[in-house]
């Protein structure tokens, strides 16, 4: 266990946000969910007791009669925000005093640093480059992420859950968020920061980042494993596998979406276009962990090899 190495990585000013993220992200997820579950319980009570529903609003605080149903933004919200702003300012100032900007040596075009890492917020993208071709990982996927974020309000027309935390009414959205952001995106950033060392090799925490490390790692295309050697069979085979993946995962997603009466009701309200777009984005998102698993566990390089693109 190379504690020195571990400390070097963890204490790097560049990596402080990531280390912070490892703790803060789960905490706020838990905190939000706790609120959501509390609200869900309140909703249960209000639905069971119509009288109560007349006099109560959906506040999380233990409700008492006579309290105003709504409060003004000023001063009740703004004073909290002001307080938060002050605290955040304190944190940022302490941070900027205590930690210097992580500047390194002047850039030398003929000598790239190793490992050569993107800024921390792009490390997820950089990690994706391990699994996909540059134009897929660097162009297509980010574009889809942005498009996906843009279309959320057009796909998700569920009016419930606006303005308050709830899990029961937004199960699908919350799971998608937890899976897509917390598990996929943040985990990849953590991997990129703490796990990837010289040569972008996989170093478990505590291993020495040895520039001379040599590992035996041969990645093969899926068709090579199966034993197909010539086009167009290679392309057709890969297409079939990818198509199969889309079919299977599409079906699985559909089953998931139609699992409860509530979600079926939401599904009914969606148009076909909304549903198809949602499905496509979901499946593509799902393809990322599948490819990661295929690569890390089974050493598969490409699934679908064509003369024009490789996936």
């Amino acid at each position, binding site marked *: 266990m190379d504690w*020195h190495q571990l400390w070097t990585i963890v204490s790097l000013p560049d990596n402080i946000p990531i280390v912070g993220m490892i703790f803060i992200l789960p905490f706020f997820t838990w905190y939000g969910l706790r609120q959501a579950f509390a609200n869900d319980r309140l909703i249960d009570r209000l639905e069971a007791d119509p009288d109560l529903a007349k006099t109560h609003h959906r506040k999380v605080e233990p409700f008492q009669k006579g309290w105003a149903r709504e409060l003004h933004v000023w001063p009740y919200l703004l004073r909290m925000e002001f*307080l938060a702003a*002050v605290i955040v300012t304190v944190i940022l*100032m302490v941070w900027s*005093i205590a930690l210097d900007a992580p500047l390194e040596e002047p850039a030398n075009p003929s000598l790239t640093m190793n490992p050569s890492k993107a800024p921390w917020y792009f490390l997820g993208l950089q990690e994706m480059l391990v699994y996909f071709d540059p134009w897929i990982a660097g162009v297509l996927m980010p574009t889809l992420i942005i498009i996906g974020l843009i279309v959320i309000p057009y796909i998700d027309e569920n009016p419930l859950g606006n303005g308050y935390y709830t899990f029961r009414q937004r199960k699908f959205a919350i799971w998608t968020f937890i899976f897509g952001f917390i598990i996929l995106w943040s985990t990849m950033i953590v991997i990129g920061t703490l796990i990837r060392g010289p040569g972008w090799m996989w170093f478990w925490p505590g291993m020495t980042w040895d520039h001379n490390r040599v590992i035996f790692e041969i990645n093969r295309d899926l068709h090579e494993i199966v034993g197909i050697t010539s086009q167009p069979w290679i392309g057709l085979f890969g297409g079939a596998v990818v198509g199969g993946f889309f079919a299977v995962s599409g079906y699985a997603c559909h089953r998931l979406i139609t699992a409860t009466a509530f979600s079926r009701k939401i599904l009914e309200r969606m148009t076909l276009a909304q549903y198809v777009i949602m499905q496509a984005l979901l499946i593509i998102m799902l393809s990322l962990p599948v490819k990661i698993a295929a690569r890390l566990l089974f050493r598969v390089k490409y699934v679908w090899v064509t003369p024009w693109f490789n996936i």
Partner: protein
Amino acid sequence: MPESQVNPAPDPLATKSYSVHLLVSTLLLMLTLVWAIYDEVEIMRPYKEYQARFRGYYTGFLMQKVRPEQAAKEEAVRSSAEYRALDAKVNEAEAAAANRVREIDTESAGVTARMTDARGAFQILRSEMDALRYLVEVSHDDEEKDDLRADIEDIRQRVVTAALTKTDGSGEVEEVEMKFDQLEDEFLGMQTRRAELQAERLAVLGAADAARQERDAFMSEQLVGLNSTQIDGLITKMRDFPIDIKQIHLSDIDLVDRCESCHLGIREPVAIGRADLRYPVFQSHPRPELLKIHDPEAFGCSSCHNGNGRATRSITKGHGRHKFWLYPLYHRENVEAGCQQCHAKEVVTPGAEVLNAGRSLFLNKGCWGCHRFESYDAESEELTTVRQAIGNLAATRAANAKEQQVSLDLGDSASDAAESRRHYARAEELRLTNTTIDAELHNLREEDRNLAKEVKKFGPSLKEIKVKDRKEWIPVWLENPHEFRPGSKMPVFRLSDDDIRKISAYLWQNALDGDLQQHPQGNAENGKELFETRGCLGCHSIGEGGERIGGNFAANLSRVGEKTNYNYLVRWIRNPAEVTPDPNVPDAMRPRPVMPSLRLSLGETRDIATYLAGRKTDAVYAAADYMDDTGLAAEGKELIRHYGCAGCHEISGLETEGRIGTELTLEGSKPLERLDFALKTHEAETEGWYSHKGFFEAKLENPEVFDEGKEKAHLEKLRMPDFNLSPDEIDALTTFLLGAVDTAFPEQYRYEPEDERADVQEGWWILARHNCTGCHQIRPGNVSSFMTMPRYTDDPDWAEQLPPQLYTEGARVQPEWLRGFLKNPALSETSLDRNGVRSYLHARMPTFYFSDRQISKITKFFMARDSQPIPYSPEPMEPLTAGERAIGRQLFTSEAAPCLKCHISGVPSRDVNASAPNFLIAAERLKPNWTFRWLLEPAAIAPGTAMPSELFRDDNGRWVFNGEIPVAARNYEKDQAELLTRYMFQMDNAELRRLQALQ
């Protein structure tokens, strides 16, 4: 129950007070603000603390230590008679001028006051007029202009009341009514008067000023260090010392150095020691003489020392000793690396002794055999270039000749005259071009001949081993040269037994066969004496451990008898240029040896060879029959190529092999990541030697260190052999390599002179390569091998036998003579077995195998060092009158200056006991100026010389003989030293005979 009747607890969201939270977080915010300001003002600016401390300590140091010390010294000067006389002169002159000065001062005060008053009133009027005049200039209306002009005229005629001080010194003020013109006259009149008064004051005080200057000059001459006024100035400076960034900015190289923000004492005029101001950071530059030639205002600090000149936040950052600063401050032991970056063309830089040692090691350990380094072994590269140029020119010439013939033919067969003329003109043009090419070719071939002589491999030729060496010795030597000969220049290669067998087989089978002349044995005892005194030990050493004597430029010969046969030794010592004929190499192409000829007689040679052949131990050598196995030899060739043996040695079949090592010219600026620390990377990082310095030191200390732990096949391993360097040698080489950088400085910063200083630079290369400093002292501080030998240090008679010092050789001798001397130090075509100048010396100036170009460069070197012009044209000398000749003769032979007692005079019976140079050749050898100075003060030119000092004394600007003045010279009015010089330079045979007759 209606809600209103319930009296609920207050809604916490609406009623809960956040005052405490707000108060605490706002206080925290204020606190961080204070922290931010404190951080900005104090923590980020640690130099403030340094400066505050420096101010205190330095003031204390000046007041308590420097001032009293200097005051005592000053007092000593003040109390001297000379000073008191000068001081009295000053007082006298001042007293004489005092009355008039007082009058002038009084009047001047009045005049100045009145002038100031007049100017006030005058200026008010003038400003008013100027404003109106401007309006006239910009107005476009003639009528308006006229109105304005009238206004101006009104002002000019206006009568104003001015309060003017009277000039009689009473200080009273009179009210005067004046117009503008009158005021102007008054003002200018006062101004003129004041200037007159000031000029007069200067004139009156002239004598006193001159006397004071004389007195002060005397003081500053006598006083070592600062005087009290200067020290008080420093103390005052400290009182008003501003606490701020001290910065040097060089805009042309964008260098910003703030080093002096903490290193405050660096340029102080007082020498501050490491402990004087409590902290070493405040000490003054330990070598202020270097700052004089490299003014920090023009060179900065980090340009020489490296480090991050801009950073002021911490020591680590300022010194740049962290991972991300590419130019960390040089460590103390490597500080001279900074010199190399601008002095890269030199092999000797005065003052940079560690660096010089590093360069010398690089040159004399043969590093350049494997590693290219610009300027080292430049001759072989020049040779390649010259040969290429010759080839190209010859080809062009042939093509031209061919075209010329074609043009002639075309001209002959052309149909019309114009066409024909055109072809003939072309042919003529080509003929002329070829004539030019011929001239160029001639020069290049001359250079080729010179270079062929100059190019030398580092080690001995291995083609000779069959005639030279004992067969069984070769594998023993290859296994570990340092065991056979500790400190040998041949490094230890990590060869396997198999490698050794194969390599020795190849070398043996490819060596030349030849017959050596057989010589009878000589006298070993005499050989030992000759070996120790003739000059062999200038380069070679003998004896091991504490017994070792001699230089370390060439091999230690303690066991040479075990390896080299007697007849070869005789041939080699007698004429190192004589080699076993090689059918493949024409004589002109054969490299000349570094070892010179000492022009020994055959008898002497045999004696020395006999002595050396007897230098052996009773070591037993195993038979090495495998060396005749041709199969092994074939494999040996590949191994020799692999280990790069041909980089240093001439080996048959491998004459064209290149260098196997990496080029080191810019090694110091190679990115650290490109230096392969291999498995040591992590260790180096955690232990703090992951740096260029760390790499060089580790590698030089143990060349295979970066193979440690690596799984490699035998031939994949690092090839650099082990030189067994001492820690000092490692420091020196590391310094040299650290300085081997791709400098970012523009040309004007680098020391690449084109005047005679370039001759000095070039000359040192030849001197270093031929170890001239092994025998001669050429530079102050240079210790020759002779000076380390007990015989010369302990015995005063032998001390006089030291080879001459060459400090002022350029001023001493004439360049043409020096050229001839270097070519043939015997100065004789027939009797070679002697020294041309100092035949009394046992040590002999050897004949080196210099090319004409090298001889010319050495001559230029000595002349340039003493700023002597080439060619030398002597000043015409006043002829001696008969009387002067007689005086000269008498001086020459007088009891007090028995010149001929020591100097060679051409009488063989006397010259046996002579111990000084031959003055008969003075006229062609020496320069009169130098000779004159030599006569006056020989010890200043050559410390420790046997030539007596104070032969002449100064008699009111004229040098007269210091002994009993000969009768003939008693009435001689002119300079006697000068006369003696002329006498020596106008010596002819007739005079010589007369002189000898007197003896």
